[in-house]
């Protein structure tokens, strides 16, 4: 098969809420239709669907049928969380490039607040398998615990202060205030941050993202086709993932860093660009501690200096790079990182309204926390 270039041409989403009253299937279909409409494509032109899920969503074939696409050349349900929110986009590009499909829809849809909540640790119906069998009995089973364990290590190694985490939460919320789609837009200051209740030390309330109901979808097709569609095509010009240590949350070698210490090498080796070329960085932010480790690992600032980086405004408008202009998972909503891709595209099209990053040309999007994840760089064609 002859390879060809691919491009991201459409974005769609539902409202984000705490109680959608809708199935993941219904929300995924809405987001997919919206993304196809945005692209200027018809639903029956879709011949590839890729999604990710943790047994909490709708399948690729179910969503395809729901929008009237009956015959897929590619149907892929990837089991995973934020760690695969770059994987699915990379695979959609690769599939189009290889000729496996012509029009691919990528989606994530979940009832993250009204349905299966990630922040709850009730005894699951099924016993916990794999490495989690050794965490189950002590209840070391919810993500804030795992990431807080990494954050504590960062504090130990770099002398990181509580305020350093606070700067990330405050900056992110400030950005969300200009985003009508964000779930939380009320500004917070350091007093608010420090006086909020503990969740699990070193994390307080504002260190944690927002469990959310909703769906996001993206459309990928060939660059040739993209040139005749509604928007200027968005290309991927850098890519690197790292799925390390068997996915272990407990035996990752150096927990003051994350997967990003490994993925960073692949990412920057894949491109002529450098961290200083990034205008926007949509950093996966399930918790502030994830942003702290990953902005450092990906080289946006030196190791151990993320707090200062945010505190001095270098991660906001007028600084080095605007990190999470939409407010991220912390303030826009936990769409498991696919909303970061949506925001990157808005910014690179110049369609981000009151939160537009001036002359945004390159956007870094990261996905995942702890042992596994990845990153890619989108480039605007304008």
């Amino acid at each position, binding site marked *: 098969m002859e390879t060809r270039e691919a491009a991201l041409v459409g974005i769609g989403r539902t409202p984000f809420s705490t109680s959608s009253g809708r199935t993941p299937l219904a929300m995924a279909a809405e987001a997919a239709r919206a993304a196809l409409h945005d692209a200027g494509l018809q639903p029956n032109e879709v011949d590839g669907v890729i999604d990710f899920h943790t047994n909490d969503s709708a399948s690729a074939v179910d969503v395809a049928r729901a929008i009237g696409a009956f015959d897929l050349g590619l149907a892929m349900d990837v089991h995973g969380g934020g760690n695969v929110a770059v994987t699915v986009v990379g695979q959609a590009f690769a599939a189009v490039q290889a000729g496996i499909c012509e029009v691919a829809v990528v989606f994530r849809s979940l009832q993250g607040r009204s349905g299966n909540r990630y*922040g*709850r*640790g*009730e*005894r*699951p119906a*099924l*016993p*916990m*398998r*794999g*490495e*989690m*069998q*050794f*965490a*189950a*009995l*002590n*209840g*070391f*089973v*919810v993500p*804030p*615990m795992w990431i*807080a*364990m*990494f954050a*504590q*290590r960062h504090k*130990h190694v770099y002398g990181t202060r509580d305020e350093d985490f606070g700067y990330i939460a405050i900056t992110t919320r400030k950005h969300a205030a200009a985003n009508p789609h964000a779930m939380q837009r009320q500004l917070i200051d350091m007093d608010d941050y420090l006086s909020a*209740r*503990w*969740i*699990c*030390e*070193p994390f307080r309330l504002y260190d944690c993202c927002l469990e959310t109901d909703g769906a996001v979808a993206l459309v990928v097709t060939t660059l040739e086709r993209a040139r005749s569609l509604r928007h200027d095509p968005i290309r991927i010009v850098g890519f690197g993932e790292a799925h390390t240590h*068997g996915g*272990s949350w*407990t*035996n990752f070698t150096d*927990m003051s860093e994350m997967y990003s210490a490994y993925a960073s090498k692949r990412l920057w080796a894949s491109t002529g660009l450098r961290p200083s070329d990034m205008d926007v960085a949509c950093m996966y932010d399930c918790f502030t501690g994830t942003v702290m480790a990953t902005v450092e690992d990906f080289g946006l600032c030196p190791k151990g200096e993320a707090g200062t980086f945010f505190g001095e405004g270098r991660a906001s408008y007028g600084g080095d790079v605007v990190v999470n202009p939409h407010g991220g998972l912390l303030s826009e909503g936990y769409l498991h990182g696919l909303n970061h891709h949506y925001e990157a595209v808005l910014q690179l099209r110049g369609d981000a309204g009151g939160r537009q990053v001036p002359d945004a040309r390159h956007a870094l999007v990261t996905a995942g926390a702890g042992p596994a994840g990845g990153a890619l760089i989108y480039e605007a064609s304008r």
Partner: protein
Amino acid sequence: MNRTGPVPAPPAPLIDTDSAGFWEATREGRIALCRCSDCGAWLARPLERCSSCGGPTSFTDVTGTGTVYSFIVVHHASVPAFAALVPYVLALVEFDEGPRLPGMLLDEQGPGVAIGQRVSAELTQFTGAEERAVVYRRVNDVEQPSVPDA
């Protein structure tokens, strides 16, 4: 949350063929981790064959002492089984043999706990659990365990 009702059980482990030796040991009151019979490597994740050399593995008793690699103080009762215990400390302990296992640091609420703290592992059966869990105490809280001959 109804604190007067029965205490819910914690999540349960799915014991598989590779890990059965670990759980059999806990039922006998021992902590045994997976180790390669050929190269001697300790495996954090029990495996049928060694991830370093492919050799056969077995479960070998550990000294039961280790160091706090990291820890968290749980305030929000995410896990209903332990809602009555908040705040409590979950420690990620690096056994002297190398592998890390998470577990509760008993009778601690956070103050005074630090990375590098020496701990001793023991087994406890939480209410409603079918298996015994690995938990820890600060070594200065218990009699210093004797060091076996090398």
